[in-house]
């Protein structure tokens, strides 16, 4: 899993409860929106729960490890990650 590169990301809004550990783990990449749902900060200052492509994340300093830790930190498993081949990396 650690070798897979993240290509696509999504916060499932119907599962996300706004518990916020993902935002703590990846504050440069994620935040809560007005409905208490986690969103990615994407290029152009927009926010999106996704699915988004990896390269849409606005801050270039955010690495894959951080995005993976953010997903793994979710206590309700609302964050989904896929690799370049469309294979789901997380949740396992």
């Amino acid at each position, binding site marked *: 899993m650690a070798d897979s590169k993240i290509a696509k990301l999504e916060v499932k809004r119907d599962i996300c409860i*706004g*518990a*916020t*550990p993902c935002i703590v783990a990846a504050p440069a990449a994620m935040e*809560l929106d007005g409905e208490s749902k986690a969103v990615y900060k994407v290029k152009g200052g927009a926010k999106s729960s996704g699915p988004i492509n990896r390269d849409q994340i606005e801050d270039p300093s955010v690495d894959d490890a951080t995005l993976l830790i953010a997903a793994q930190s979710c206590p309700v498993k609302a964050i989904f990650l896929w690799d370049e081949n469309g294979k789901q990396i997380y949740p396992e």
Partner: protein
Amino acid sequence: MAEKKYLIIGGGVAGTTAAETVRQLDPGGEITIVSTEPHIFYSRIMISKPHFFLGKVPFDQIWLRKEAWYADKKINFIGGRTAAKFDTAARTATLDDGRVLNYDKLLLAIGVQARRWTVPGADKKGVFYVRTLEDGQGLMAAAKASKQAVVIGGGAIGFEMCELWKLSGLETTLIIREPHYWDPVLDEPSGRMIEDALEKNGIKVIRNQYVTEAYGGEAMEGVVLQDGTRLPCQAAAVGIGGMCPFGPAQEAGIKCNRGVVTNEFLETSAPDVWAAGDAAEYYDQIFEEQTQFGSWSNAQMQGRIAGQNMAGRRTPYRAVTFYAVSGLGINIAFVGTVAPVPGRQIIARGSREANAYARLIMKQGRLVGATMLNRTAEIGPLAKLIEKKLDLSARLAELADPKFDLKTLVV
């Protein structure tokens, strides 16, 4: 040199994260987790979330680690056992089965337990707390088997259980002792907004009352209120707060107050003993006071810091934590410290009428916390304002203007 022995009491998010962190920094150390619950690490908070409670996802999604993870990381897991005695001079913990474990580094990640309901009949079948996996299974079964249910207590658990009983199709009544919801953490307009959301969804709210008895046979058939009203119900969810089970730690001479007292490094009063998570009453560098904060993210971050420090680093815990819950058409969020402490100045931002209301909590001109209803998008800038410890005493009018963009203060 012998490998270090790390003993972690508590298998929840703080304890598990600490074990994981220690392993990253000390590949050879001996790590043992002792958990009162028999289960490996699971998502305690998933129990009271609709998608799980209503069975929309498989029950197995509750597990946050696999059995194999413990073996892979060479972490010993002792489940279903409680640490009954500590000796901080001899560096031992004695479990409730008499087993004695030695340690070089000890972490108390013992969490809090649900405060027990003490009314006559509180031991009847149908009375539930909302804390453990077994509690969750009991609640889920009761939701299917009952027609009427009550919720005791106006806090986070009470709010979630009102929604879950209602979504399960039960006639639901909330009983709170206080004049409004979440008093005294929230003010009256905030509390009423939550009650509005409950009542709009068909939940009956009874204020200024408490239950004097749960009646019935072996199973509860209803509750009697202080004014004599009998309320038939087959299930009660009790959310009246938590208590840290620090007895054995305190008996060992470790300083405890509401929780296990620590400094900013999460070190307790005993050498080589740390505390983390809901149980830790830590010195908060940002608020400059002792603080206890029960939330998933706080427990996780403290577990990480405690693990680092047990493995030889000395990193202070410094974070602005927040807590958010939503349902029934309302978003509730707390950021920073929101305890109703005398001497705080409260700035109202928005209103109940506007259905978007925050209370900004100031300590000596600085923002230290906020309660937010339907204003959760402001968590980010508010957390930054708290973290930066800015003197905002000249900006109070702007803080009180709900149209003022808080982000402009952060830069």
